[in-house]
Structure formats: C-alpha cells, structure tokens
C-alpha cells in the first residue's frame, strides 16, 4: 500500500500521560496528491501533523519521505528534508518585513552564504556575510527575485507591502505570508494546518482559491481543515479521525457519507464550527518543561 507514496507514516502513536492522543495511525500521500484530514475537536489531527513535521516526538511509528526514514527528526531536519508547514494560528515574524519573512523560507537552500565546511563553518559564515563575495551576492539577489515571484502569485495584495513589517498586515495577509514562506522552502510536501482559521467568509473564499492554485501547480498537500466545503472541493482523498484513530478514509463523498464520521461529528456536536482548542497547538504549551524548549 505504501509503495509509490511520497510520504508514508505507519503506526504513529503519541501518548500524553494516560491519554493516547494518536493511536496507531497510518497515513500515505502520493506525489501530487491532496489529502485532507478531518475530525472533531480533540480528534488528534494537529497532534498527528506535529508528529509528522517534527514539532513533537512520537512514541511509536515510522515516517518515510521518498524512501528516507524521517521519524522524529527535529523540525530543522524536517525542513531540510523538504517538509514545510504552516501553523493554525499563524506564526509570522512580526518585526520582520514581508520580504525577510519569506526569505527565511529560503534558508535551507542557501549555499554560498552558509558554508558546509566542518569546524570553521561558523567563522566562514560570519566572514562571508561581512565580505559578501560575488557568489553570496548573486545568491541573495536570486532569492529576493524568487520571493518577489512567489509573493506576486497572491496578486497585488502583498507586493506593495514587501518592505513593511508583518505586524502591520491584515490577518489574511499574514496567512498569505506564511504560505509564501512555506513555498520558498521548495517543499516536497506542504502541510497546511487550518489555513482559514479565524477568517471571514470572503477571506475564506480567497484562501480556498490560493490553496486551489497550489493544488493545480501539482504540489503534494496535506490539509487539516474544519470548513468541509473547502475539503470537499479540493481533496483527492479524505481521512477522518476521532479519538486518535482513523475512522474512515476514501473519496470526499464517501467519507462525508460514512455513518461513523457523521456519528463522530454529531457526538461532539461541533461539525465544522468554532475554533478548535487543542492545547498542543497553542503557542507556548508545546512542551512540558517550564523554561526549556
């Protein structure tokens, strides 16, 4: 079943104390596929995404990306492996300009600016930033050009604001910046965690168009979304979770009509509504220890 999958996670399990938040979940995404994960609040969706993208460590299970084992890699290694994600509540760098925000997305691709020589790399990196040989300048110029191109795909919304700090942007524009930052990573797989959370009707429609455009570019996308309308329109395949387990998987229509799915949503009585409040997603609560990341 996993053959041909770009990303395949098997038996993913995560326990918090006595609670099993994610219980032996299998998830497979093929190249160019659009997979959505739905489920009521507390179903374990975001925990699952955190495990796949390295934000959290799984107790059991394995994740392979293009045949390479990426189980429990640090977020940084995940990024280097080509996994890019956005955050449910948006995490742009407020005091950085739009340009700088998206350039951070290019970080893993910097070659000239980030020498890989062992031991002396730190000294070289500082010296190169000071001296700026032609290679570094060319690389930076190319990245900046690319950022402009990525930002331009969002129409005229962001381009005039390239040099403004992102704290001055509207909520929707900040989400756009976040997606642009993810695209700048040149990801093999793009993980979108509720990109329309907190958006109004018209913003939601715009975001749906953006995600639709990403899909049409042939990108491999994993989506968590509460707004079922978007899920039904865009997904190639849908996975429904409840209580940390997969309860249904298949075409959008099949999952929507699955009695188990309906029961799960009715049982929680929050179909598609409201802001989920999974603690593990809230900024600042991702780890137990008070002072340590």
């Amino acid at each position, binding site marked *: 079943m996993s053959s041909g999958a770009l990303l395949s996670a098997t038996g993913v399990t995560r326990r918090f*104390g006595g609670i099993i938040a994610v219980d032996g979940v299998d998830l497979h995404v093929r190249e160019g596929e659009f997979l959505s994960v739905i489920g009521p609040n507390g179903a374990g969706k975001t925990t699952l995404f955190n495990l796949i*993208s*390295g*934000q959290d460590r799984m107790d059991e299970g394995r994740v392979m990306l293009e045949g390479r084992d990426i189980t429990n890699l*640090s*977020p*940084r290694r*995940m*990024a*280097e492996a080509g996994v*890019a*994600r956005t*955050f449910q509540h948006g*995490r*742009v*760098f*407020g*005091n*950085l300009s739009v340009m*700088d*925000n998206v*350039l*951070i*997305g290019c*970080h*893993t691709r*910097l070659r000239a*600016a*980030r020498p890989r020589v062992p031991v002396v790399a*730190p*000294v070289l*990196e*500082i010296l190169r*930033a*000071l001296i*700026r040989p032609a290679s570094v300048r060319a690389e*930076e110029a190319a990245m900046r050009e690319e950022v402009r191109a990525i930002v331009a795909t969002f129409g005229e919304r962001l381009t005039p604001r390239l040099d403004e*700090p992102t*704290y001055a942007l509207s909520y929707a524009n900040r989400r756009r910046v976040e997606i642009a*930052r993810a695209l700048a*990573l040149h990801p093999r797989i793009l993980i979108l965690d509720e990109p329309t959370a907190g958006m109004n009707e018209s913003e939601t429609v715009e975001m749906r168009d953006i995600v639709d455009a990403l899909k049409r570019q042939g990108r491999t996308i994993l989506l968590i979304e509460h707004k079922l309308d978007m899920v039904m329109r865009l997904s190639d395949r849908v996975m429904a979770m409840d209580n940390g387990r997969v309860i249904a998987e298949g075409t959008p229509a099949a999952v929507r009509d699955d009695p188990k799915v309906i029961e799960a949503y009715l049982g929680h009585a929050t179909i598609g509504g409201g802001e989920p409040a999974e603690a593990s997603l809230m*900024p*600042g*609560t*991702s*780890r*137990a*220890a*008070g*002072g*340590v*990341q």
Partner: protein
Amino acid sequence: MGSILSLPWFDFTVSGVVIGSIYALMAVGLALIFGVANLINFAHGAVFTVGAYVGWVCAVALGLPLWATVPLVALGGGLVGAGIEYIAIRPLNRQSRIAPLLATIGVGLILDQIVHILFGANPRALPVPMPGWRVSVGQGSIGPIDITIFVTAVIAAAALYAFLFRTRLGMAVRATAQDEDAAKQMGVNIHAVNMAVFAIAGALGAIAGLLVGIYYNAIDPNTSFQIMLKGMVAIVIGGMANVPGAIGGGVILGLIESYGIALFGASYRNLFAFAVLLLMLLVKPNGLFAKGREREAEPMTGTFVIQSMPVRPPGWLLALGVAAAALVPLAGQPYLTQVMTNAFLYALAAISLTLIAGTVGLVSIGHAALLAIGAYASALLTIAGLPVALGLVAAAAITALLGTALAYPAFRLRGHYVAIGTLAIGEIVSLVILNWTSLTNGSMGVFGIPPLTLFGVDFFSTNPSYWLVLGLVVVFALLQTRLLSSHLGRTWRAIREDTVAAETYGVGSNYYKGLAYGFAGFTAGLAGAVTAHQFSYINFDTFNLLTSVLILTIVILGGLGNVTGAIVAAVLVAGLPEMFRVLAEYRMLFYGAALLLLIRFRPRGLLGSG
C-alpha cells in the same frame, strides 16, 4: 583534616539550616510574587533593606519595644511593596515579562540608594534585647532569633498557603495568576489583588530584613542584591511559584552551601549557589517539588522588542558625529577625554550586548563576564610575553569561543529564565576567576598589565587611547551593521520573534545564537582587553553584576538591537554623570531611575528597537 567522614557533618547541617531559613524567609515572598505576577521581583532585596532600617529607626532611634517595631516594619514593607506594584508593575501589564523584571532592578537600585543617602553606608548595629538563653546543638548553639527566623518563615509559608488555597481572595489571587482575562471576567479586581500580594510580600521581606538585622546585629545598605539572589536561587530550587516549596528550597540551598564549604572551603559558597541555580534551570526548571506540569510553560518569545521602526539617522549625520567625536581631545581637557574613552568602552560592550539581547532576544544580565574573560585573557597572555596587539586579538578570539561555550546552556532557556541563567553564568565566571588562583592569581588580581602599545606605537596616553577606542567602536559598529543586513540579520531576528517557527523553516536556532554570541564575544572581549591594559590592574570584581546591569541599561536606552542607539546611550549613561560630578553621590539613583523610566515610558529606547 582527616577523612571526609570525620568532618562534623551534624554541625554543618545545623549551619546550613540556620542560613537556609534566612534564604527561605526571602524566598517565600519571592515565590508569592512569582505565583501571582509571574515575575521575579529584583527589588525584594531592597525591601529587605528598607525593613532593616525601618526597624533600626523604631527600635534604636525611637527606642520602641519589639512588639511595636514588628508591625511598623511590616507596615513600612507593605507600603513599599504596594508602591513597587503601583509604579513598576501595573503600568507594564501589557508588556512581556522581562520588562517588569528590569523595572524591579531599577526600583531596587533607587530604594537602595535612598537608604544609602538617608543613613549612610556605614553598617549600623541593631541591638534588640532578646532572651538570653541559647540551646546547645552539636558543638555550637542556636539562640531565640535563629528559631524565630525559621518559625516565621514556616508560619508565613503556611499562612500564605492556607490563604491561597482556602480563602476566596486567595482563589482570586490564584485565578489571576492562571488566567488574567478569565479572572477579570469573573469580576476579580486584578489590580487590587496584585497590590495586595505585593504588599504582603513586602511586609514579609521587611520583617525578614529586621530579623536578619537583629540576628547579625548589623544592617547596611549593600546587602540587598546578594540576599535577593539567594532567595531567587531558593525559589528556583523549590519551584518558582511554590510557596511551601520556597522553604524547602531555602533550606536545601543553605545545606548545599554549608556542605560545599565543608568539602571545598568558604570561597566556594557562591559558586555552589549559582551552579545549583543553573543546573536547576536546565534540568528541573519547575523545581524539585514539581509534580509533572504544575504551571504552563513560558511564552515562546522572551524579548520585549516593541513593534517599532528604528530611527535611521542619515549617513552624513553619523559621519559628522564620528568626526565630532574624533575632535574631542583637541578641547585640551584630558579628564573629558578620559571620560569619553570610558564611555566608548561601554559603547563597545553595549554594541555587543545589543546584538545578543536586542537582535537575538537573549536578554543577558551577565554580560560583564565576557569583558572579564577578554580582560584576563589579554592580561595573562601579554604578561607571559605576547605583544599587546596579539594579546588583544587572542583575547577577543578566546572570549568568542569561551563566551559562546559558557552561554550555550542558556540558549535552551527562554523568557526571563534567560535573564536568570545569564546572571548565574556571569557570577560563575567571576567566582571561577576568584577561585582559580593558579591561573588568575585569585583575589590578588593581576597586576602590572602592560600598557597599550601596538606595533611599537604608544596608545596608552590619553589621546591615542581615546582614538584607538573610538576607532574600535566605529569599526565594530560598521561590521555589526553589515552583518545585520545579511542573511544573518534576518535569521537572528526571526529566532527572536518565534524560535519554533524559525526552526520549522530549517534555522538551527542554537547554531545562530552561537554565531551571535561568537561575534558579540569577540567585540566584548576586545572591550574588556583594552580596559585591562588601561587599568594595568584587574581582579575578579572589576567587571561585576553592576557593570552588567549598566550595560543592559545602555542597550535598552539606545533601543534593543540598535547599534547607533547603543553608542549614543553609552555616551549619555557612562559619560554624562561623570561630567556633572556634583551629582556623583546620586549616580546610582540616576541609573535606577533611567532604567525604570525607560521601561515605563519608552521601552523601544531613544532610537527605536530593531
């Protein structure tokens, strides 16, 4: 001395408990405040001192009996506590936690200085008649005051615990601590609750000052910071907001120190205290007595870099400023020139700290350690025969390496844990210098450091040394500005804004914090080394905690992360008071007030944070 087993362990235990109960008494108040305001109150030591002096006025100057003195001291401490809340905490409600922490440092400096001005620096006796009996314990004895201190600490902790968990107001207090907005919706008057808590803690701190003053029969205005730091270590051990845990933390700290002295000698006492602090922060940040997750973790971002656009002075203005500065020696006033040399040495240190504290967001209260490393490295190398020019460069490189390695444990910390952690690292460096006698000459200091002669050219006379330092400031300001405009600048600022998001996009935050520390260490090491050659004598106390606080004040004044701001602020803070020496007696008051007012009214600094 015989084997370890033959040591009088029982007596060491008694000694540890006696001093530990003093720490516990301090810690209870600190824990209470941390529990409610989520803040380490650095002014708590000053409240302690105020209490001691109110006690002196009542018991000695007015001749009141003890039963009348204690309530008056509590009242005085309560008022000061409430005042701290009103002046330093309440207005900063909406800022990140490091802001009120720094504000309390400012308040502490001011209070200490007021006591100093009113009562002078001379220690005073506080003879309060106590019952004459003493109980023999082991080979020594304990008296009524030892027991009073311990019992007061335990009763205070028990009463506070009962208050917090058994009364309605206590519930309100805890609700405030957990979720301010929710508490507000439930109709809790947050301000009143906060003020009540600061008043209670103030009263406790003041009584501690009185009791400890009676215990030693001595009070002086210079104890505040030291005793506060011990209380802080105690609450880190006991769990920051854990009031009963504070008692345990205090006693454990007392025991650790006592056993440390038993094994290694008295000069290692503080080294143990700060090593324990650092270890606790890294291994068990929620304290020894934490059951799983008692508190929610800190927020991700630890800075209070305000959303602001830094002022960017035009290039011609900067060039003009440098030109004007270069002409200072031509005024023919060597004193002015020397003061400006000092100011620019501070500027060099401030440039390096503004990178760490401003750009990367690691607000360090231990920056003087980098200066000390640079100073010792260059002093020892040049005394051993290395030419001064090479000594400076080697010292800068050594500081870059060693400073980064030492600060590395703090990279994992966030929020104001960074501040405490760097403070501990700074103190540890100073104490290692003190105790590593074979290398550093210990408390004797290093004498006869060669004067600044670079490649046979005299840089030690007033004017050349001024130009040298000014030149270093200009060069390093330009280098740092260039770094900030590279990919490193945005990467550092991204780490400051949101470390998790930065890591998610492939930024190794520890690696880049290390790069920043390396570059800043190079700059700071050079500043320290030049200072050492200027002084010709340095010791472990040449670059102390006050130096760190002063540099941080400069950095905040200039605007966190703002290179030009750091230089301008250094000239203002380190230069101005020297030029108006009439005000010399009030210099510390000036620094304290500057820190407090800045954080209150212009946290972005003069030129804006970057």
